[in-house]
């Protein structure tokens, strides 16, 4: 008897609550353009505060996807029409160098957020050594801001810089999988040539041979992997990476130029457990 009344009421209550949540989601006023990102650091100069964000909330060695917002220190409003460049710099005892980095562009569909990436190939003992300079212009006015930043050492080798047989220095950085799983993963890697201490252009149309191994399992490898090949769409290298179980994997690599000449790395054989060119992954 009672149930007869309670059920419709419950039903209506449920319906109405679900409706109201829908409405709040549609409300444009509350949209937070950095939702889901964690602030890493603020770089402040006299006029602006540059907020740096990422998914992890810190800089670490390897590939870092970075979002940023520029806040006007007087109005507390975010700048929507800046053009920005950046320069990360590693200060070493005898020299200094920069690192591979993208240009900075407005995030798709966002008004105040700009994004790009930086690949930190290394870091100092306690995360020190790096500084980041942001040069930007707003309505033809040019500004700059510099601050030293902390870059922590990633647990695994997700980036490697090396000199190849052609005499050039290269940097290889793993971008995906960010959340590896027992499956065929999409492996995405960036390949950069160190043209000078400051310039690291993307290398096109090389091939990187892939041989994933588990040293803890007597160098077990998986099947249906493919070699990394260049994709003009996103200027990165892509491959299928099968991971048959969780644990520590070494991705043995071999860099081949457009002539298919091996520039770095060796095959894994019974006598050679690991290529001199490799990345690591753990999950």
């Amino acid at each position, binding site marked *: 008897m009672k149930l007869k009344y309670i059920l419709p009421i419950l039903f209506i209550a449920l319906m109405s609550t679900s409706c109201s949540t829908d409405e709040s989601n549609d409300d444009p006023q509350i949209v937070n353009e950095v939702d889901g990102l964690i602030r890493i650091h603020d770089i402040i100069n006299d006029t602006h505060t540059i907020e740096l964000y990422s998914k992890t909330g810190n800089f670490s060695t390897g590939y870092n996807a970075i979002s940023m917002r520029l806040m006007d220190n007087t109005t507390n409003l975010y700048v929507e029409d800046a053009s920005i460049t950046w320069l990360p710099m590693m200060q070493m005892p005898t020299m200094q160098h920069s690192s591979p980095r993208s240009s900075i562009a407005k995030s798709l569909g966002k008004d105040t957020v700009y994004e790009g990436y930086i690949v930190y190939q290394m870091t100092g003992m306690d995360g020190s050594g790096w500084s980041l300079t942001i040069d930007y212009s707003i309505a033809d006015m040019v500004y700059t801001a510099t601050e030293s930043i902390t870059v922590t050492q990633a647990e695994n080798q997700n980036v490697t810089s090396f000199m190849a047989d052609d005499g050039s220095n290269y940097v290889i950085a793993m971008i995906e999988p960010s959340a590896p*799983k*027992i*499956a*065929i993963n999409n492996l995405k890697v960036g390949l950069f040539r160190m043209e000078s201490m400051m310039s690291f252009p993307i290398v096109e149309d090389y091939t990187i041979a892939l041989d994933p191994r*588990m*040293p*803890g*399992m*007597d160098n*077990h*490898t*998986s*099947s*249906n992997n493919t070699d990394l090949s260049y994709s003009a769409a996103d200027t990165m290298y892509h491959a299928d990476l*099968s991971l*048959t*179980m*969780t*644990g*520590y994997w070494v991705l043995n690599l071999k860099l081949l130029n457009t002539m298919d000449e091996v520039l770095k790395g060796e095959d894994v054989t019974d006598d050679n457990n690991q290529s001199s060119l490799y990345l690591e992954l*753990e*999950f």
Partner: protein
Amino acid sequence: MKHFIICCFGLLLSGLMCAQQQKSDTLNSIKKDTTKLDEITVVGRRKLSNYRQEKTLSSVDDFLEKANKITMIKRGNYAWEPSINNMNSQRLTVTIDGMQIFGACTDKMDPITSYVDVSNLEKVSVGSGQSGTENGHCVGGGLDLKLPETKFYESGLKTSIDLGYETNGNYRTAGLELEYSGNKFYIKTDGIFRKSDNYDSGRNQDVLYSQFEKYNSSTQVGYKLTENHKLEANVIYDKATDIGYPALPMDVSLAEAIITSVTHNYSNDSTFFKSLESKLYFNTITHVMDDSKRPVVAIRMDMPGWSNTYGFYSKAAIAFKNHELSFNLNGFYNRSLAEMTMYPNDSNQPEMFMYTWPDIRTLYSGFYVKDRYSINEKESLTASLRLGYHHNRIAKDVGLESLQIFYPEIEDSKNRFLTSMAADYSFKQKAYDVSFGLGYGERAPSVSEGYGFFLFNSFDNFDYIGNPTLNNEKAIEANIKANYHFNKFHIGLESSYFHIMDYIIGNIDPSLNAMTIGANGVKVYNALSHATIFDVYLNSSYRFSKSLSINGTVGYNYGKGSNDENLPLIKPFSYLAEVGYNISRFNAAIQLEGNGNQSNYNSFYGEDETPQFAVLNLNLGNTFYTKENKIILKYGVDNMLDTNYSTYADWNNIPRQGRNFYLNLSYVIR
């Protein structure tokens, strides 16, 4: 071809239904003796509870091994895997009183028979080939472990105590059984405990990791609602710990099963339906493999597995004119999950984890009908048909994605339609009887064959990967049985021939890299276009007098694949001879059993040429009666000559038990 066969059987069945001839026939008499080996008929039944076995406390495994067509594959001293017609688990239907139950071990270390004990059971019903499809689809045969029926005898309380000791392995057994039978109420409860240390093979070689320990208890309650209706409930709890597997690189720290059922039973001789039995059941198995007792391993690992099954069946029996019809509608839902965690020797590296059975759900529903038609007093014709729908689903995304490494195209579920049918003609006279049977059956791949992920097989030292795209395995079967009785002499022949299409077996895939450290490579389950299995047994006996008899059996088995290779685990030439002496309160028997040289082995599947052997056993038994109580004493010597041997069915050639003195004592209090 397949459709043609189905049509033929369909016609045959419908013909049977329509045929109407006068004649009544008595039921084919079912032999219940347990000490002789020539008793397994096409559908054979062996009573467990009548104290006529060599050992009253022998395990289910020991018991089954005595049957003609059954061989037990041994990985240790416990949990042997039954094989019928040279086909094992995945080609058989093994049920407990019609209940589907599936082991939780990816390496077949826990056949269903290991989760019950003789004290739980009344008899074992063995159906060779397609005559074993009453409870499910199979190719090799069906094994149904029957629970006792509730009895309303008003016989009051009966207690029996069993004690056993065997010298080899310091094997101790103790059992207690209480049974109360009233007018409307029945209860039986039993418990048994078994513990064995490592056994010695012939010439006192200690077989390391062959110990085990097991508890089993069951309770059965029955209530008679009316004269025709009764309700029953049954619970079996079985727990084995510290089980060693000398033939394998890992042991088992826990194998636990809870098997429950509720049954409603209707029987009435005067109605159209003679009986109607419906059962609801649930069982759950937990199986934990570990290697903590092994001092040296390449890598430490844990491999737990779980299997839960829910199901039901409804059986009906109808008799009219010369027909005896039986129906069985059944269904089950099973969840099989197994995982593996490995601990790297370099402690800086994280644990390695994978699903070896990636949460496979199996839903089956099917219908079975059997008609036994008596043509006249001597002849009868039996036909059966089972149709079923079989559905597999990979429930975990991780599981699906991990299998997609090897099969990028597969989806998470797969449907199969299964058909099994059999027809059998038998002719019976006083001096001889013959029967011929034909059958066609299909089976779905097992969870390991379909979805296993790097399952290590220590027999051939390969990792196995399941294949979700496998076709159903199909078999055409012919069998013949003949018995001839001449005064005191009896001779019998039985033989089965199987032509199996899409015979599922592992094939090396050289492109895949072994996961298990030290393994030779990876095999993927695949199918041979066909395979042939043939077996023939010749039994004979001669009765010198009422008390003294001699009997003997020789058997020959053959199995070959379409690739012209021998099939693995095919029994070589075997023989058994027994002289028995029986008077009412004493029995004695001496047995010689042996196998010929296993020359038709298959090294591809890890077999080698197992040499011939012969062993001699002696068993004796006494029965004493006091006023109301009864004492049964069974004692003897297994392997009298302490022969060191192993058989073709011993995994990695682990040696069998050497000389063993045993004594079983049963005390029955009424």
